[in-house]
């Protein structure tokens, strides 16, 4: 039993814990003893939350097309929606201070997720984000052919998510593209359960744990929760980590405070009010749980390149520090991960070893490619990128403050430090296509969110005015978070007209023809992935007004070549490349002047051109 292996300390004064929660609840509830108002009050908050979500949906439904500006989705939302965005937070903070009702806190958290993710899901007429469309294409490819075509894309070497999504779409009778719109919201809701379990195992104060869930939801701006293997694998990673911490985390036994090693182990030891449910699992159940965790690790290893390494790294670190008292599980995770890399992903790493480990040891270049290379483009785009960096910086600062506070009070701080710090080890191994820093932020977020929540709750516990300042700061973070999260919406969202143009392209272009896009952010390839020849985007050529080079890049396919130009691609050139505002018109002019293109489809947001052979154009 876990309880036998945990060294219990009496709770020292200082940071918030279970005793602090009870005291605060008693103090807050002292003036609210009248039972007549109890039912009304209990029903009022859920009613307000439900009404807020429904009103929000009605307010913004279908409003995004044509209203999104350089600042992203926030420009398309009416002002009342921004107030509705604050509503769940207000209810949540009030309940956190007064009642601590699990039902109301859960409902407020769910409402917060719906209002944040619904800002695009409700308002946009088509599913968003080019990569998500491509993932729908991978799923369709597997559904139609039963093959992975590993030579086409590296992601096919880890097809677990795509195959499972194919089975799911078949079972519920929906096209893979239809799953895209609701996937981010569903993933965000799914993350909450393992996070709650993880937080319960790592912190004694329910108030801090609930606040941590809210902080995670708001601070998760990285946008990795779309229809993608990493979102699915991240959920399984959280689930695995949370079950391990809830069931198998034992703390260090035989603490010897006289030696440095003994002092470190004392820091790792769990106090009595943490992980109270840990003891409720029997020895037999633990054995079965190990088997189930190995199955979960296998699913992670089959679904995503990076996540299994993150899981293995965190579990190994916990085992090495003596907190995790079973070495079998980290070992099994490593074996499964390396096993899949050697067997399933063999096609990928044959000849791509430099892509996998080429940046090993080059931490500074990984950081600069992940951060510095992103601060480009228009002034607004640079402000948005800087806002994201600032958000990450503030989170890490708050988390550091929380960690120091916990360490000083000798409370399980180092375990949280290990979970928050383990992802940083990845920077020494992989740059992950320049997204290394983003992934580090995401994978450290569960622990940093809890640490930041600890810092905020500790601060708020000092006095009422300080608590009010913390609450107001929390409310102000919400619109900022919306800009950080959906600031690229001018070129990541797909209008109904753009969707119609992509559908028309697949109707018009014969199989085997070459399809070309202006910039890589075009949402297409959701069907016919292996039936067309997709050439490189020709943005660079058009940016320097060399339409002849663009034509050369389109090749000489006898079945024809088609170029699609959409509003989103023009916006991408303006925002990310910093091209002038009339760049779109110059593209159209250059295409017309070349006399090599025939318009085969046109609407307000998109045009599809067919490249004509040289002799026909001359005639």
């Amino acid at each position, binding site marked *: 039993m876990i309880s036998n292996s945990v060294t219990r300390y009496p709770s020292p004064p200082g940071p918030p814990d279970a005793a602090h929660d009870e005291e605060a609840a008693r103090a807050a509830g002292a003036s609210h003893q009248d039972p007549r108002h109890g039912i009304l009050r209990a029903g009022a908050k859920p009613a307000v939350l439900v009404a807020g979500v429904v009103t929000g949906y009605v307010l913004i439904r279908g409003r995004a097309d044509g209203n999104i500006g350089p600042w992203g989705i926030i420009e398309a939302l009416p002002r009342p929606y921004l107030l509705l965005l604050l509503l769940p937070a207000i209810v949540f903070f009030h309940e956190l201070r007064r009642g601590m009702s699990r039902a109301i806190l859960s409902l407020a958290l769910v409402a917060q997720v719906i209002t944040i993710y619904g800002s695009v899901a409700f308002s946009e007429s088509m599913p968003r984000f080019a990569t998500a469309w491509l993932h729908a294409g991978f799923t369709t490819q*597997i*559904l139609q052919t*039963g*093959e*992975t075509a590993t030579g086409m894309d590296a992601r096919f070497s880890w*097809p*677990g*998510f795509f*195959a*499972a999504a*194919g*089975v*799911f779409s*078949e*079972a*519920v*009778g*929906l096209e893979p593209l*239809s799953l895209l719109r609701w996937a981010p919201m569903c993933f965000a809701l*799914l993350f909450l*359960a*393992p996070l*709650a*379990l993880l937080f*319960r195992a790592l912190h004694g104060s329910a108030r801090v744990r609930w606040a941590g869930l809210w902080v995670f939801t708001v601070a998760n701006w990285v946008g990795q929760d779309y229809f993608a293997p990493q979102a*699915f694998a991240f*959920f*399984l990673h959280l*689930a*695995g980590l*949370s*079950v391990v911490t*809830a*069931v198998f985390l034992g703390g260090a036994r035989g603490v010897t405070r006289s030696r440095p090693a003994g002092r470190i182990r004392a820091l790792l030891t769990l106090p009595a009010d943490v992980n109270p*449910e840990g003891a*409720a*699992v*029997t020895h037999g*159940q633990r054995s*079965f*749980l190990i088997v*189930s965790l190995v*199955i*979960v690790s*296998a*699913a992670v290893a*089959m*679904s995503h390149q990076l996540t299994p390494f993150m899981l293995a790294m965190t579990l190994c670190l916990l085992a090495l520090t003596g907190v995790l008292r079973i070495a079998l599980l980290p070992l099994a995770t490593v074996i499964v991960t390396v096993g899949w890399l050697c067997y*399933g992903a063999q096609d990928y790493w044959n000849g791509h070893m430099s892509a996998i480990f080429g940046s090993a040891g080059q931490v500074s270049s990984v950081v600069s490619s992940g951060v510095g290379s992103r601060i480009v483009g228009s002034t607004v785009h640079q402000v948005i990128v800087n806002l994201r960096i600032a958000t990450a910086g503030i989170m890490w600062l708050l988390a550091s403050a929380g960690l120091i506070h916990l360490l000083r009070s000798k409370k399980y701080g180092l375990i949280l430090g290990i979970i928050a710090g383990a992802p940083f080890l990845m920077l020494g191994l992989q740059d992950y296509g320049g997204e290394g820093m983003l992934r580090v932020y995401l994978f450290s977020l569960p622990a940093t969110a809890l640490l930041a929540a600890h810092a905020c709750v500790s601060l708020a516990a000092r006095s009422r005015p300080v608590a009010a300042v913390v609450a107001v700061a929390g409310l102000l973070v919400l619109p900022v978070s919306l800009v950080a999260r959906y600031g690229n919406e001018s070129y990541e969202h797909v209008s109904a007209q753009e969707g119609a143009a992509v559908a028309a392209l697949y109707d018009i272009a014969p199989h085997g023809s070459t399809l070309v896009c202006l910039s890589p952010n075009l949402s297409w390839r959701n069907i016919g992935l292996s039936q067309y020849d997709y050439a490189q985007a020709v943005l660079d050529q058009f940016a320097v007004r060399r339409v002849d080079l663009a034509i050369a890049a389109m090749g000489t396919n006898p079945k024809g070549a088609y170029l699609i130009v959409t509003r989103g691609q023009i916006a991408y050139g303006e925002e990310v490349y910093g091209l002038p505002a009339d760049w779109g018109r110059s593209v159209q002019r250059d295409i017309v002047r070349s006399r090599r293109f025939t318009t085969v489809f046109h609407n307000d947001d998109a045009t599809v051109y067919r490249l004509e052979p040289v002799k026909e154009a001359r005639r």
Partner: protein
Amino acid sequence: MRPGRTIGTAAGLAVWAAIALVWTSLAGSDLGGSPARVIGVGIPLLAGPGLGFVLLLNIADPLLSLVIAVSLGCATLVVGAQISLYSGHWSPPVVIVSQLACTVLISAAASIRGAIAKQRREAGPVAG
């Protein structure tokens, strides 16, 4: 062993058989993309085997049960789909049926185990 939520043998088996019947008929229906089919088939597909496992283990902690049910259900779906894909016999219906079979078999085993445990409790301690 703490008292869990396992259902008694006969009633339990009947419930699981009914769930299997409703699920199969929904999965094969023309209600493509309807909320009834998404909820009625999608959720059991993702969480079914994991839920069966939780019932079998008789885990008393609801939050731990929820996390294990969903994550293990999703993981078995991935493993099942992957086996179907890599064996060269890709067939989503077979994967769906195998998930259903896993759910029903594990849950039925949990029901039988629960009934046996109940019987032992009712029989009381044997006098030595």
